């Protein structure tokens, strides 16, 4: 009963904070929706409105060259009243999306897959935060709140990624595959989460059943399921728009980066500076770099698939072409699941300070560049480097902590001793 009251308190407070922000500062959503840190070309709510307008007037939403998001978002948002006159409905929708995400996060925490997966029992497994605390960390993370208030569609991708992880950690294969296919359909790169989550799902299924199911059959059936679900969504989009052109405007944009609007990631500046003849080559290299983490982490962290998936979300927040603070918010809210690794992390203060500094200096330098005219693009880019550095220090450090945790189980006699990599 006490837990339930806590839950109600956390969720109630989170909903209240969001609705309060929406109603007391009516100009805040538009302000945040215009910030490059929150809204990227592929997640912006303003661009969604543009696409919606074209869609409602029976013009292909991709004709304007502004809308780069998935076609199935259009019928969903056209059900809502026009947000410029009646924003309450979309506010409620986004608040609900965040609450559902937090609920999924609680399910992940309750599944205990973070500390005691099937193949590995952490020696620090008693050190964990309650699921309510983890959910609170997500709901009250300023980055999550900012994303929600800006009504960026990455909130939806975040929700479906969290649901996919939650279902995988409960061993619910069908819903997991379906949620992941929606997440991938919305923002493409979550498909890279499939290998670790598949392993996670398999592990949970194996530990629940008496005898482990056949690995190859499990893999094949789920991969086929994912392909079918993605295919279905794409076919529905085709039916909706009447042509396959949307592929070019959604996934083509994500892959080929034609829109170089600044964001918190590392790609835009690099590709502004790039000579056109090298563009294709470096696009290939950059994407290969992002994609190569998925198999690598999955194999190395075979015993802790949930951690591999969480680390991958961190990689996405740094290395994808259009990252925003929403991606960082997802990663930073998955981290508290691994509370037992925190004592092993060495640079947490450093990384946290770097991220804090970046989140204040970023808007300041953007102001100097765009509004005051006294700075230039290098100012903002320097800060995105610091931001990415902070995130990558966290990713690297938590990875070290996870491996050290595994090592402590393998070699208990070396626990607490300094180790050196040779």
């Amino acid at each position, binding site marked *: 009963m006490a837990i339930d009251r806590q839950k109600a308190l956390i969720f109630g407070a989170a909903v209240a904070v969001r609705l309060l922000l929406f109603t007391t500062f009516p100009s805040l959503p538009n302000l945040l929706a215009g910030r490059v840190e929150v809204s990227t070309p592929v997640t912006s709510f303003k661009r969604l409105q543009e696409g919606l307008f074209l869609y409602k007037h029976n013009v292909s939403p991709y004709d304007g060259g502004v809308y780069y998001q998935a076609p199935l978002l259009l019928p969903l948002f056209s059900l809502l009243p026009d947000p410029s006159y009646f924003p309450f409905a979309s506010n409620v929708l986004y608040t609900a999306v965040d609450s559902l995400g937090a609920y999924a996060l609680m399910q992940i925490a309750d599944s205990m897959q973070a500390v005691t997966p099937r193949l590995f029992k952490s020696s620090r497994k008693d050190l964990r935060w309650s699921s309510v605390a983890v959910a609170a960390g997500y709901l009250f993370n300023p980055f999550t709140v900012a994303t929600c208030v800006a009504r960026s569609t990455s909130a939806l991708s975040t929700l479906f990624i969290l649901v996919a992880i939650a279902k995988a950690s409960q061993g619910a294969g069908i819903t997991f595959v379906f949620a992941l296919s929606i997440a991938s359909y919305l923002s493409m790169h979550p498909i890279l989460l499939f290998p670790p989550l598949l392993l996670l799902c398999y592990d949970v299924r194996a530990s629940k059943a008496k005898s482990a199911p056949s690995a190859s059959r499990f893999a094949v059936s789920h991969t086929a399921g994912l392909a079918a679900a993605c295919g279905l969504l794409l076919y529905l989009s085709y039916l909706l728009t009447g042509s396959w052109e949307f592929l070019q405007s959604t996934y083509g944009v994500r892959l080929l980066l034609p829109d170089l609007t600044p964001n918190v990631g590392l790609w835009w500046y690099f590709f502004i500076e790039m000579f056109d003849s090298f563009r294709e080559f470096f696009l290939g290299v950059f994407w290969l770099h992002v994609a190569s983490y998925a198999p690598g982490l999955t194999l190395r962290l075979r015993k802790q698939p949930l951690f591999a998936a969480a680390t991958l979300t961190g990689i996405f927040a740094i290395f994808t072409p259009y990252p925003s603070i929403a991606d960082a918010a997802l990663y930073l809210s998955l981290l508290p699941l691994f509370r037992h690794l925190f*004592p092993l992390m060495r640079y947490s203060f450093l990384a946290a300070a770097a991220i804090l500094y970046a989140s204040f200096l970023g808007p300041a330098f953007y102001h100097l560049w765009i509004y005051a005219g006294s700075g230039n693009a290098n100012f903002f880019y320097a800060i995105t480097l610091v931001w990415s550095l902070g995130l990558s220090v966290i990713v690297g450090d938590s990875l070290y902590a996870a491996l050290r945790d595994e090592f402590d189980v393998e070699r208990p006699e070396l626990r607490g001793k300094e180790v050196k990599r040779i």
Partner: protein
Amino acid sequence: MALIATVLALRSHPRIQRLPPYLSLLCIIIGVAWLLLLPLNEYSRETYISENALLPGQVHTYFTGSEHNVFRAYRHEVADMILQPPDVRSKRLEDIFHSNNLKAATQRYTYHTPGREIKDENVYAVLRGPRADATEAIVLVAAWRNMDGKINHSGVALVLTLARYFKRWSLWSKDIIFLISGDSTSGPQAWVDAYHDAHSPETVESLSIKSGALQGAVALDYPAGPWGHRYGKLHIMYDGVNGQLTNLDLFNTAVNIASGQMGIGTALQRMWSHKNTYQDRLQTMLRGMMSQGLGHASGPHSAFIPYRVDAITLQTVGDGWHDEMSLGRTVESIFRSLNNLLEHLHQSFFFYLLLSAKRFVSIGTYLPSAMLIAANFSITAIALWVQSGRSDLDEPAAPSKTPASSEKKTESEFFQPTTEKKMTLIHSGPSATLIPTTLLTTTERPLLYPTLFITAIHTTGLIPLYFFNNAHSTHLPLILNTTLATTPLLPLLISLALSKTSLRPTIRHITLIQCFSLLLLGMFLASLATLNFSLSFLIGVLACPLSFVRPRPGSKVQSAGLYLLLSLLNPVVVGRAATVYWGADAVEVLLKAAEGWHVWGLWTQVIVWLVWWPAWVVGGVVASQGLVA
């Protein structure tokens, strides 16, 4: 990473742990000393014109002779309008512009700031440049009333004369806009907001005539009456709202033309006599920093600067032999220079401190001083973070365990109880050493309580921010005095209230709270230094004792002394003391600040109430721990 790991391993070394306060102090001393070095020749530079297109003073000026008669006639016209209501005045000004074949229009604006209604009219006229395609424009401004509230007789008359005079030239390759604003701050703000469609149409009328992108603006402040006044110097004002500065090229052009071509002396920052000595340079710089730090509008030009329109105000000061015609020629020459511009002013510096009319310091040279001050907070924050992980931190907090002699402990002993300690043997190469185990182990830090505490304190800052900006002018004295009386006591009350409840913070909590607060302060000030160097520096210097405040549970006398010292540095007390020192009326200052908040988009208040004030409150809470223990 290996190097970082080695460095991080060093952090448990006891000597290193004693270092940070000295390091912080060093940062502050160097930061302040750095600033004092800037006026020396070795650290400052002569100004120079970066933008070759400007060619200041390279043209003949022809504003002489019969124009003087026209000017005198307009000056009497202006003198005649003084007693008339704004709408009649606007009509007559518009008629004068019309008679010179210029398109003219009137813009009405009404701002409601608490307890005040600012209502007036702007009149403006557009001269279509004969060689221009209406894509670029430069603005000549004269406010009807200057910053002191005097009627800008000769300034307005000069603008009218120049409008007539400029109209006859065929060489303008930019449009020229002549603006007679109703007052010196809100009027230009209303006009420039409306020019960029950033106004709210309920209070500020939209402009019916427009031209291209504004490239520069020059404002005239020449309040000599209908019988004229010969002035001695031109006072050039260049700082905008929120401490943003105009491009140094424009300032240099004005100085170059006034002193080089016209032989008029120039002054800045109210330094009427500048002997180019170290003291004078330092004083000019400090006055400039004060003005930049407060971020208020200093003249009609200030409203333009946030819109990336470089602007200056030329103000006539003193008694001398220069008359309106030499001012007119100066303006003519400046406009000829601006007319040459091929692109927006961008070459020269936007961040500088001026030491005299021809000497400046650029950002690369002066920024380290504010950054060092900000870094001192971060260093202390890191030290406190390391300290907060120490396992023996909470021991002295429990009074029952502390022996009575603890009152005499010095700070270095404070966290190391003199009772027996567990020792760890450390081998380092051939030598071995004994180190207290407590120095080597790190305990879990309770983060929730400090985070919530800091968030609550920072949120509380919204309350005074709201009241000072929105309270009616009749209530302001009461609010000011209440705040003045309560804020110094607030930290003590918080400490007392917390110590009576179950929420009583432990020493570890207090250390973490201070750590977070200083971390935030350092971060805010470092960010602010890039936007408004002076404000960041001033707050940093006033807040630097916060780095050295530590709870002293044993000694009530020391704690009380520390607390008293801190109270003197309370933002409200400092602000009140500053108004007394400069002989300003505190309520009037607050009203201006509220006007700035509502009209000009001033955000100095946000920095004071949401950055400085919360940091101070936390410092006070830390200091008052010794009083309630």
